[in-house]
C-alpha cells in the first residue's frame, strides 16, 4: 500500500517502501545466508521485484517498511504489517529481514508494534514464524509474547514444509512490551553513537 507512515526510533526508523527500494529488497532477500532459508524465495531478477512493489503499492491493508539507520540513512532491513482485518482490528506482521551485521532487530521489533498500536490503531498484532527458525521463535518468546498456536504445514519453502508458530500481542500487552524493549533500544542506540 502506498502509505506515509514513518515511525522514528532512537537509532532506527521505519520508512515506507517505495519503488526505488527494488534493488535493496532484491539484494537483501536474495543474499545467501543460512537464516534466509526460512523466507519465501523471490524472482530471479530485479524486474520481477519492481513488479511486486508496483502491485504492493496498489494493494490495500498492506504496509511495508524499510528499516533505516537514522545516523546514516542506510537501509538495513525490511518489515511489514499485512492481512489487516479492520473489523476486529487485527493484523499480521512479518517480512522481517535484516542484514546479518545489523543491530536493528530489537528496535525494529519495537517500532513495528508502535506502528500497529500507535499509528494503525490495531487491537492485536500477531506473527507466524517458521517453527524451525528457532532464533526468531525465541525472540518472540523473549519479548514475552504468548504462543497461541502451532499451524501444521503452514510454510511451503524450497527446503521443505514447515509448521508455523503463532505469537500474539494484544493492545493491553503493548505497554509491557515497550517497558521491555525500549531500554534495550536506547542502550543499543547509545552504543551505536559511541561507535561513530
Amino acid at each position, binding site marked *: 500500500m502506498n502509505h506515509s507512515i514513518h515511525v522514528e526510533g532512537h537509532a532506527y526508523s521505519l520508512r515506507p517502501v517505495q519503488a526505488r527500494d527494488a534493488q535493496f529488497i532484491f539484494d537483501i532477500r536474495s543474499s545467501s545466508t*543460512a537464516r534466509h532459508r526460512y523466507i519465501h524465495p523471490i524472482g530471479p531478477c530485479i524486474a520481477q521485484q519492481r513488479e511486486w512493489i508496483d502491485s504492493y503499492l496498489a494493494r490495500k491493508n498492506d504496509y511495508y517498511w524499510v528499516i533505516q539507520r537514522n545516523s546514516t540513512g542506510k537501509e538495513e532491513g525490511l518489515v511489514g504489517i499485512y492481512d489487516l482485518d479492520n473489523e476486529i482490528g487485527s493484523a499480521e506482521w512479518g517480512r522481517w529481514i535484516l542484514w*546479518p*551485521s*545489523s*543491530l536493528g*532487530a*530489537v528496535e525494529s521489533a519495537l517500532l513495528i508494534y508502535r506502528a500497529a498500536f500507535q499509528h494503525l490503531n490495531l487491537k492485536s498484532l500477531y506473527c507466524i514464524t517458521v517453527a524451525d527458525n*528457532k*532464533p*526468531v*521463535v*525465541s*525472540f518472540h518468546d*523473549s*519479548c514475552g509474547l504468548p504462543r497461541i498456536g502451532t499451524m501444521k504445514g503452514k510454510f511451503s519453502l524450497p527446503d521443505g514444509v514447515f509448521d508455523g508458530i503463532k505469537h500474539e500481542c494484544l493492545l493491553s500487552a503493548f505497554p509491557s512490551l515497550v517497558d521491555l*524493549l525500549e531500554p*534495550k533500544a536506547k*542502550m*543499543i542506540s547509545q*552504543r*551505536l553513537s*559511541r*561507535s561513530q
Partner: protein
Amino acid sequence: MTKTEIEAATREILESFLGEEISAGTSRSNSAAWDSLQHMQIVFALEEKFAVQFTEDEIPTLDSFKAIVGSVIERHES
C-alpha cells in the same frame, strides 16, 4: 584475568541468559535461545563484566563461546 577466569565468567553470563548448559562449542547457530534480544543483553553483560567495549562491527561476530573468549582475551592483552 586468566583465560580460565574469562571462560568461567563468559560461561556464567551465557548460562544466565540462555538458560542452558554452555560448552566450548556453544554458538548462536546451535543454541535455540540465543536470539537477537538475548544477544544484545549478553553483549552488554560481557562489556560490564570485562570492562571492555566492543565495536559495532565486533558485536555480530560475538556469536559463540569461543569467539567471545577470544575477543575478550585479545582485548585484555592489548
